[in-house]
């Protein structure tokens, strides 16, 4: 058992109870997804007001919704293609909202340098999702690179609770650049190894 595996299992204990409650109440997973983004917007507002601890707690609640929607869908046998699409789209809004909260905060402090660092981190966070989605329309799987959404969310919370958001933006930015590069390299290799494309 690894350290992160153990932390994951401990966090799953309360989440199982929440998932069971949502299943018992037959809450539609698409509604859970939408509630998640609304709560993330509230977290973004708190970040924009420099209320980092408050934002951290709101992010925990928001990401419970983000995390359980897929699992509730499976339990309710309500998995649909639209549900997957809806989840992906709404997740991007949640991502962007949090970055925008920070961009607003740094701009009100006159810190153009960190506005740029956060904007670049946001750009590559979105490109991380886009490169995978686009790659998987060409190849079977493109799950390489470290900085995916769960890592970003946990880092946002760590940054908020410990007031180390600047360091977190650097980590998200740099590792998202690597992740996008990994996905481009991986897709290039996979397509090259698959041989020449048939001429239309």
């Amino acid at each position: 058992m690894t350290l992160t595996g153990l932390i994951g299992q401990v966090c799953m204990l309360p989440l199982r109870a929440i998932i069971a409650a949502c299943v018992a109440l037959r809450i539609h997973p698409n509604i859970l997804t939408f509630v998640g983004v609304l709560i993330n917007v509230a977290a973004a507002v708190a970040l924009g007001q420099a209320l980092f601890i408050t934002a951290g707690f709101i992010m925990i609640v928001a990401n419970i919704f983000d995390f359980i929607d897929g699992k509730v869908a499976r339990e309710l046998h309500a998995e649909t293609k639209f549900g997957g699409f809806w989840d992906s789209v709404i997740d991007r809004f949640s991502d962007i909202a949090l970055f925008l909260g920070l961009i607003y905060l740094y701009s009100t402090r006159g810190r153009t340098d960190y506005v740029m660092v956060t904007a670049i981190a946001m750009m590559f966070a979105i490109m991380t999702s886009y490169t995978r989605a686009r790659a998987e329309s060409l190849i079977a799987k493109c799950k390489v690179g470290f900085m995916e959404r769960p890592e970003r969310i946990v880092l946002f919370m760590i940054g908020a609770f410990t007031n180390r958001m600047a360091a977190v933006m650097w980590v998200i930015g740099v590792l998202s650049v690597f992740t996008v590069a990994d996905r481009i390299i991986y897709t290039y290799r996979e397509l090259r190894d698959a041989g020449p494309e048939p001429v239309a």
Partner: protein
Amino acid sequence: MKTVTLPARILWSAFFWTYERATWQYDVMVVAILAFVWLTPPDWLGDPMASGNGPVGWVMAMLNAG
């Protein structure tokens, strides 16, 4: 056959990340990231919301006092 040194291989593995979550490689990466986030003095990064030298500064202050 091209020979690759161990440090180069480690660096390439960290850059071209193919490990799953909950592996020891993932744990090492998480520890490295947390060390950077928590140990780097906010002043070094010009953090707009935090100041001081953080844990590194405390250690330096203790060493200077001692």
